[in-house]
């Protein structure tokens, strides 16, 4: 098995009456951007939380580089992640937020300044993160994910709140990371963005994988990623507005 990838196998997780994960299995290969898509409530975030050891699955395993996340001595050097850009203490400056993270991995302040530069945050590094716009917090989250120079990256909705320039930047940035041989798992609802960025797509619904194909395969079969998504998730959507074309069918 490849040492630098995410392997999710048969995850099951129940929250009260809700079955959030129902046999979720897939692999994220290095050297690729893997799109992680599915309707709201399909289990994307829960899968990512299980991979990061934040939630314990009822059954199944999630391995990062062949090991459970919680057994990694310096996990941020293996996996960088962005789950919720708002998850920081508003009173701390951007640089200090990265600084404590760096210290937890035995990294130095010099590395903090590097990733701040990479994310284009050098000019605001000493401003309180609480005052950041959503787009700036996303950049800070990506900087945090890059801190340990990890071989695996896992980003949940990084395009949210980004200005067009930021979106272009992320796209190029992720492509570059994949080209360096890193594994990138990218969860998003923006199909057009994903179509331009991802090499591979894992499409999930109701807690399990509905399709696990390469981008060219999907495009060949359905024409566009958006159409592929709508056709494949037709029966797996939890929430749908009344009167939408899919609901009246």
């Amino acid at each position: 098995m490849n040492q630098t990838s995410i392997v999710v196998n048969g995850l099951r997780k129940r929250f009260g009456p809700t079955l959030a994960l129902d046999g979720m299995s897939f692999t994220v290969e290095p050297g690729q951007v893997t799109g992680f898509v599915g309707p709201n409530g399909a289990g994307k975030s829960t899968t990512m939380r299980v991979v990061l050891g934040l939630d314990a699955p009822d059954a199944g395993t999630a391995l990062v580089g062949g090991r459970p996340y919680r057994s990694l001595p310096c996990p941020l050097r293996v996996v960088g992640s962005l789950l919720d850009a708002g998850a920081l203490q508003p009173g701390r400056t951007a640089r200090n937020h990265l600084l404590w993270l760096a210290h937890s991995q035995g990294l130095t302040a010099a590395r903090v300044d590097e990733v701040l530069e990479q994310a284009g945050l050098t000019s605001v590094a000493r401003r309180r993160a609480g005052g950041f716009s959503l787009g700036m917090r996303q950049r800070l989250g990506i900087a945090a994910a890059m801190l340990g120079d990890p071989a695996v990256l896992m980003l949940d909705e990084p395009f949210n709140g980004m200005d067009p320039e930021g979106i272009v930047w992320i796209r190029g940035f992720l492509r570059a990371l994949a080209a360096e041989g890193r594994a990138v798992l990218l969860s998003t609802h923006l199909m057009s963005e994903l179509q331009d960025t991802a090499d591979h797509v894992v499409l999930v619904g109701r807690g399990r994988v509905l399709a696990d194909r390469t981008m060219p395969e999907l495009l060949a079969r359905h024409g566009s990623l958006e159409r592929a998504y709508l056709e494949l998730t037709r029966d797996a959507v939890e929430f749908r507005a009344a009167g939408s074309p899919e609901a009246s069918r």
Partner: protein
Amino acid sequence: MRRALHAEWTKLRTTPGTVLLLLSVVVATVGISILAAAATDCPGGICAVDITKVSLTGVQLGQAVVAVLAVQLIGAEYGTGMIHVSLAAVPRRLTVLAAKALMLTAVVTAAATAGVAGSLVAGRSLLPLTVTDTTVLRAAFGSVLYLILVGLLALGVTTAVRTPATAAGLVLGLLYVFPIVGLAATDPDFRRHLDQIAPMTAGLAIQRTTGLDDLAISPWRGLAVLGAWAAAALLAGGLLIRLRDA
């Protein structure tokens, strides 16, 4: 562990308000102590009260500030969701808790020592207090330990309940309600038992230097009772943070 400690130290020193809170511990402790000492009369150098305990009255307010510090140490991370980032960075959760406990102990020791020393200096100038007396030193050293243990108790409780406001209510309730119920109890045995198990009353027995025979529990055993409360809270917090989804 060393890295986790380094990270916690960076967090603590870059959280706005930490320095202010630590200063508040000192100011609250010394301030209330001065007020209490100034209000105590010792005609002819003979005091009717335990002047050591009076000189250390401020600990009763200082502990509230220590509790705030301890609660926000982990409560603020739960409040903002940053705990997910912390646990992703250091997946061994007990290590995170232990690092926080050690950091807390370190800073509270510093602030409490300053507060208690200030209180004793004030007590010495306002009351006929001999600060080199062994029992007075025991009371002073014990008061520092008391504040540390209150901090650890608060840390454990907050880790268990996760909501800062609820945790603060629980901790202060635990500290303040026992003695008040004890005041109201008519049954001397019931009152005595209450004084023996109440974290604050038992813990503050360490400040007594006179009338030790009247105490429901001896000074060091009293402090051990508070230690048991703190250990139980940390154990509960440790178990829950380990077993629960973050």
